[in-house]
C-alpha cells in the first residue's frame, strides 16, 4: 500500500499541462471536416450494393432524368488501379461487376444541392444477381462449399512452442472452452468525411478526418494515377477514431478525389451520415476461440492450446495484422513451456472488419482470461492465486521464446491491483451478500495481461519513421510528423516531449498541421506507438537540434528561452538551416521471425491487472459494474492526466464491449442497429467508481522510459467483468456482450439442469 501511495502522490506532483487543442474545441472554434467553409461545393453521395455479394448486372441512370448538373463516377472513371491500397489490392474502389458484401460502393454522385442529390438517388437503378449462399459466421465460412477466397482463410498463423500433445498427456487438470466475442463499433463522435479540391497549382488536395495521412496518400496515388507531388493530404480536426479511421479514410478520399477529377475544379465534399458510417465502415473483428488449458495439481500451466479465428469480412484489409497481434497476445503474460496458438482470419460476406483499439488482442485475451478462471474453478483455487503462480518473472522465457528481461512487472502489478481493490475483503463480503436475501448477486473478477506497444515484430523497422524539428528565426519550434491528434491527446504529449527535451516552455513548441506537403512520414497513428515510438524520435530530434544550435550557433549549455530565440535568429540570418531529422532505429535486441512467431514481438510491453466488481439484478439480469480497478505498469506517464483519461476511456469502452455493445446484423450481413438509440454504449450513469493505478518503472522504449498505453485498457475489462458475473451467478458465460437476455437464458438453463 505504501508503494501505491507513493506512486499516487508522485503522480500528483507532476505537471499535467493544459491540452494544446483544448480551448479551440471547448469554444467550438475547431473546424471538423464538415465545418470547413467552401465556395461552390458539390455534395456527394455513394450508391451501394444491396445484396450480400453477387454480380451487378445493370446500373441504370434513368434516361428521363436530367443528369447534366450532376457529376457521376463509376468504376470506368478510375484513371489508376481500381483497388484500395492496403496489404493486398483485393478491395475495389468502386465495384465493376462482382462484389462481396452489401453496402459496397458502385457509383458516386455529386451535386451542389443536397436535396437534388437525394432526388437523383431515386433515379438510379441497380439490378443485382445475389450470391446464392452468403456466409456470415466464422465456422460456417470455414466449412462452406462455395468460397469467397480459397478455403475462406485470408491468413493462417501458427505460434508453436514446446509440445502441447505431449504436455496434454501429463496434465493433471484440464479444461476446454469455446468463447465468442461480438463485433464492436468505434463510435467516434465525428462521422467520417473528406473534401477533395484542386489547388490553383494543379495539386489535388484532400482534407478530412483520419488517423494515417500517408495511407491516404498512397491510396490516392494508386487510384488516381497522379504522382505524389500532385497530391496533398491534410488532416482536419478529427473527432475520435479508435482505429476506425485507419483504413477506411482511404476509400472515402479516393471517392472524393474521383469526383473532383470529374467536377471541373469544383470542390467535392463527401460526408457520411451516422447510419451510413455505422453500416459500411469497419468495426472490431468478431472472434471464436477454442481454448484448452492444462495444469498440474499445484496450478502450474502445462500447456496453452488455442484455435483462434477472427471474422475478417469480405476483403482482407488489415485482418492479417489484427490476427498476428491477436495470436501473439493469446498466451497472455504467463510462463508456459508448451504453447500452440493457431490463428485464422476468415472471409465472410460482412463488410470488412478493421482496426479498433486493441487490434485483435482484446479478443484473444478475453478467451484466455475467461478460460483461466474456469481452470482456477476446476483446480478449486482462487483466480488470483492461479495467476500468481503463472505470471512471468524476469528471466523467464516468454510465449514467443525470448528471454524476459528487467522490464517485467506482471507479478508486481497483480499485487498492486489486489491491494488497491481490496480484493480478498470484497470477495468475502460478496460471499456474505450472496448468501443473504438481496435483490442482487455480486461477484469480483480479474484479468491479468500485457499489451505490446508499437508495430508488431519488424513492423517498425519497415515503417522507418522520420520526424523533423524545424526551428524558426523567432525561436518558435515546429514538430513535423504525420501522427495525428484525434482526441487522444497526442498533440499535447508530443509538444510536451519536445519542449521538455529542448528545455523550452510549451508555448514555444508547436505541432504542425498534419499535411503531407510538409510533414515526413512518421508512420500511422495506431498501435499505441505515437508517444512511445514517435515521441522517442522527437526527443532524439530535440537533442539533435540543441547540438546543432550549440555547435553552429554557440548556444550555451543552459540557456533561457530568449537566448534560444536569439541563436535561432542569428543562424537564420547567416543562412544556416534550422531543420533536424530523426529516423527510427530498432533496439539492438529486437529479433523477430515472422514465419515461426518466435523472438521479441514488441520492444515494450505494458503490464496490467484489472479487477471488476459487478452486481447482477436477480429479476432482470441487468449487470452493473460497482467498482473497477485498473492497475498498470506503463514505464513513465509523460502527461499523467492524459494517461489517466486514456485508461478511463478505454475501460469504459471495455465495459461497453463486455455488457452493452451488441452489433446486430440484418439478413444482408449489415449492421441493423445503425442508430445511437439502438447501438447502446454506456453513459456516465452506467459507470461506477473507476480507480486507475499507475506504476512507473521507466524501462519502456519511449521518452523517459514511457510505453504505449492507448490500447492497453481495452484488453482487460471484458474478461474481468465476465469472470465477475460468472462468480456472481455461478454460471459459465461464453460470449460477450453479456446482455441480460443471454444471462437469463443461461440462468434458466442452469436452473433447469439442477431440477433434473
Amino acid at each position: 500500500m505504501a508503494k501505491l501511495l507513493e506512486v499516487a502522490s508522485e503522480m500528483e506532483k507532476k505537471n499535467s499541462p493544459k491540452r494544446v487543442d483544448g480551448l479551440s474545441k471547448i469554444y467550438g472554434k475547431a473546424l471538423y471536416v464538415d465545418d470547413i467553409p467552401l465556395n461552390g461545393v458539390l455534395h456527394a453521395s455513394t450508391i451501394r450494393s444491396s445484396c450480400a455479394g453477387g454480380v451487378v448486372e445493370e446500373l441504370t441512370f434513368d434516361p428521363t432524368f436530367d443528369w447534366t448538373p450532376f457529376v457521376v463516377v463509376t468504376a470506368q472513371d478510375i484513371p489508376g488501379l481500381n483497388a484500395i491500397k492496403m496489404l493486398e489490392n483485393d478491395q475495389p474502389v468502386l465495384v465493376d461487376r462482382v462484389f462481396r458484401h452489401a453496402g459496397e460502393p458502385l457509383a458516386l454522385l455529386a451535386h451542389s444541392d443536397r436535396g437534388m442529390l437525394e432526388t437523383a438517388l431515386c433515379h438510379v437503378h441497380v439490378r443485382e444477381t445475389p450470391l446464392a449462399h452468403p456466409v456470415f459466421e466464422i465456422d460456417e465460412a470455414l466449412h462452406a462449399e462455395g468460397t469467397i477466397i480459397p478455403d475462406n482463410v485470408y491468413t493462417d498463423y501458427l505460434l508453436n512452442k514446446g509440445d502441447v500433445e505431449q504436455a496434454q498427456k501429463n496434465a493433471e487438470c484440464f479444461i476446454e472452452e469455446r468463447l465468442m466475442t461480438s463485433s464492436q463499433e468505434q463510435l467516434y463522435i465525428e462521422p467520417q468525411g473528406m473534401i477533395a479540391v484542386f489547388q490553383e497549382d494543379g495539386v489535388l488536395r484532400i482534407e478530412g478526418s483520419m488517423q494515417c495521412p500517408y495511407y491516404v496518400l498512397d491510396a490516392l496515388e494508386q487510384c488516381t494515377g497522379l504522382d505524389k507531388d500532385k497530391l496533398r493530404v491534410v488532416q482536419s480536426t478529427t473527432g475520435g477514431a479508435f482505429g476506425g479511421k485507419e483504413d477506411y479514410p482511404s476509400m472515402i478520399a479516393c471517392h472524393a478525389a474521383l469526383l473532383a477529377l470529374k467536377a471541373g475544379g469544383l470542390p467535392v465534399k463527401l460526408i457520411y451520415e451516422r447510419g451510413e458510417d455505422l453500416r459500411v465502415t469497419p468495426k472490431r473483428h468478431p472472434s471464436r476461440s477454442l481454448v484448452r488449458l492444462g495444469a498440474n495439481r499445484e496450478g502450474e500451466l502445462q500447456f496453452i492450446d488455442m484455435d483462434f479465428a477472427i471474422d475478417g469480412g469480405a476483403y482482407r484489409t488489415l485482418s492479417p495484422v489484427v490476427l498476428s497481434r491477436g495470436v501473439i497476445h493469446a498466451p497472455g503474460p504467463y510462463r508456459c513451456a508448451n504453447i500452440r496458438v493457431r490463428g485464422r482470419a476468415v472471409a465472410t460476406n460482412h463488410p470488412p472488419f478493421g482496426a479498433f483499439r486493441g487490434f485483435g488482442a482484446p479478443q484473444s485475451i478475453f478467451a484466455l482470461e475467461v478460460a483461466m478462471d474456469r481452470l482456477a474453478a476446476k483446480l478449486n483455487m482462487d483466480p488470483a492465486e492461479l495467476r500468481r503462480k503463472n505470471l512471468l518473472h524476469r528471466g523467464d522465457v516468454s510465449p514467443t521464446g525470448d528471454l524476459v528481461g528487467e522490464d517485467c512487472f506482471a507479478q508486481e502489478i497483480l499485487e498492486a491491483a489486489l491491494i488497491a481493490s481490496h480484493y480478498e475483503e470484497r470477495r468475502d463480503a460478496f460471499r456474505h451478500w450472496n448468501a443473504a436475501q438481496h435483490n442482487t448477486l455480486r461477484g469480483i473478477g480479474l484479468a491479468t495481461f500485457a499489451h505490446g506497444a508499437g508495430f508488431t515484430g519488424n513492423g517498425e523497422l519497415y515503417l522507418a519513421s522520420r520526424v523533423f524539428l524545424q526551428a524558426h528565426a523567432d525561436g518558435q519550434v515546429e514538430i513535423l510528423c504525420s501522427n495525428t491528434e484525434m482526441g487522444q491527446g497526442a498533440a499535447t504529449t508530443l509538444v510536451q516531449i519536445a519542449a521538455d527535451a529542448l528545455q523550452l516552455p510549451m508555448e514555444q513548441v508547436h505541432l504542425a498541421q498534419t499535411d503531407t506537403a510538409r510533414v515526413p512520414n512518421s508512420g500511422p497513428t495506431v498501435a499505441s506507438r505515437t508517444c512511445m515510438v514517435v515521441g522517442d524520435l522527437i526527443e532524439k530530434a530535440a537533442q539533435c537540434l540543441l547540438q546543432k544550435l550549440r555547435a553552429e550557433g554557440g548556444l550555451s549549455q543552459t540557456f533561457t528561452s530568449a537566448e534560444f530565440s536569439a541563436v535561432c535568429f542569428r543562424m537564420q540570418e547567416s543562412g544556416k538551416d534550422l531543420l533536424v531529422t530523426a529516423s527510427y532505429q530498432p533496439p539492438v535486441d529486437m529479433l523477430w521471425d515472422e514465419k515461426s512467431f518466435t523472438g521479441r514481438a514488441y520492444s515494450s510491453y505494458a503490464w496490467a491487472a484489472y479487477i471488476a466488481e459487478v452486481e447482477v439484478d436477480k429479476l432482470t439480469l441487468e449487470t452493473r459494474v460497482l467498482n473497477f480497478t485498473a492497475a498498470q505498469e506503463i514505464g513513465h506517464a509523460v502527461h499523467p492526466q492524459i494517461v489517466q483519461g486514456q485508461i478511463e476511456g478505454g475501460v469504459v469502452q471495455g465495459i461497453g464491449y463486455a455488457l452493452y455493445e451488441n452489433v446486430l446484423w440484418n439478413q444482408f450481413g449489415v449492421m441493423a442497429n445503425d442508430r445511437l438509440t439502438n447501438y447502446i454504449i454506456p453513459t456516465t450513469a452506467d459507470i461506477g467508481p473507476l480507480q486507475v493505478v499507475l506504476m512507473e518503472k521507466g524501462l519502456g522504449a519511449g521518452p523517459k522510459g514511457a510505453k504505449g498505453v492507448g490500447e492497453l485498457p481495452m484488453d482487460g475489462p471484458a474478461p474481468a467483468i465476465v469472470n465477475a458475473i460468472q462468480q456472481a451467478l455461478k454460471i459459465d458465460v461464453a460470449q460477450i456482450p453479456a446482455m441480460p437476455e443471454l444471462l437469463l437464458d443461461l440462468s434458466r438453463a442452469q436452473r433447469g439442469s439442477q431440477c433434473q
Partner: protein
Amino acid sequence: MAEWLRPRHMNEALRLLAELPADHHQIISGGTDVMVAQQLRAPRDIAVWLDLSAIPELKMVEVTAEGIRIGAGVTLSVLRRHPEVQKHWPMLAASAAVTGAAPIQNRATLGGNLCNASPAADNAPVLLAYGARLEIAGPNGTRFLPYDQFHLGYRQTALAAHELLQAIHVPYLPGGSRAYYRKVGTRAAQAIAKVGIAAWIHFDAGQGIIAARFGLASVAATPCLLPRVSHYLEGNNLKHVCEFTIREKVSSDIKPVDDIRSTAEYRLEVASRLVWEAIHDAH
C-alpha cells in the same frame, strides 16, 4: 418551403388545424420525437408545421378536488420536480425522470409522449396504472376519454383528425393504495424501455385486494393494461395469490415481440417477474 404556424391560444390552434391539409402537416411541441423521425424516415412532404409550444393553456398544472390536471404541453422536467406530483403521484415523477435525459426532459412534453404513441412510451404505464383520463379538444368542444382507450393499435390513437390532446387528468388515490414503477432499459439513462411497468394496487385493511391496475410498455403493439391479471387479483387475498397463475395471466395479457432491443422471451419472463414483485413489493 414549409410553413410554420405557432398559435397562442387553444382556439386558434384548433381553427388552424381544421384548415390544414390532411396528410401534409405535422403537429410539433417539444420535437424530441418528431425531429428524430424527420431525420430517420424518407423525406415526407410536410407543407405546414403546427407548433403548439406557445400556448400557455397547455403549460398549466392545476390541482383540483379530484386530482391533478396536467396540460399536454407540460414538460417532463416540470413534472419530475413538481411537489404535488412528487407527493401524490410519485410514479409519474419517477417515469418523467427516466424519460430520455435531462435535455430531452426540458423539451419533451407529457402530451407529446402519449400522442407519439410509441409502445415504449415511458410515461404511459404510469398513467394507465393511475387510471388517468384525457381531455381532448376538438372543433365541437371538449370530450373526456379514459386513457386506457386512447391507444388503438401500433402508433394509432383515438384522436380524430381535427382534435388535440389538451390535458391529462390523474385522480387522487384512495387510502390503502400501493404503487410500483420500474423501467428496464438498455442502460441506466438515455434508454428506450425493454419493459416498463407501473402498478397500482388498492388493499383493504387486511391483505385483500380491492382493485389492481398494471400499465406496461414495450410488451405489445401499444402501452397496455393487464386485464386478466387485474381480474384475478381483485377480490383475492395476497396470501392466496399464486405465482404460476400470475405468469399464465401475464402471458395471455401481453404480446411481446423480438426486436432490435430485446427478445419476446426476455420481455415475457421479466414482465412476469416484475408483476409478481409489484404485487408483493408495492408500497
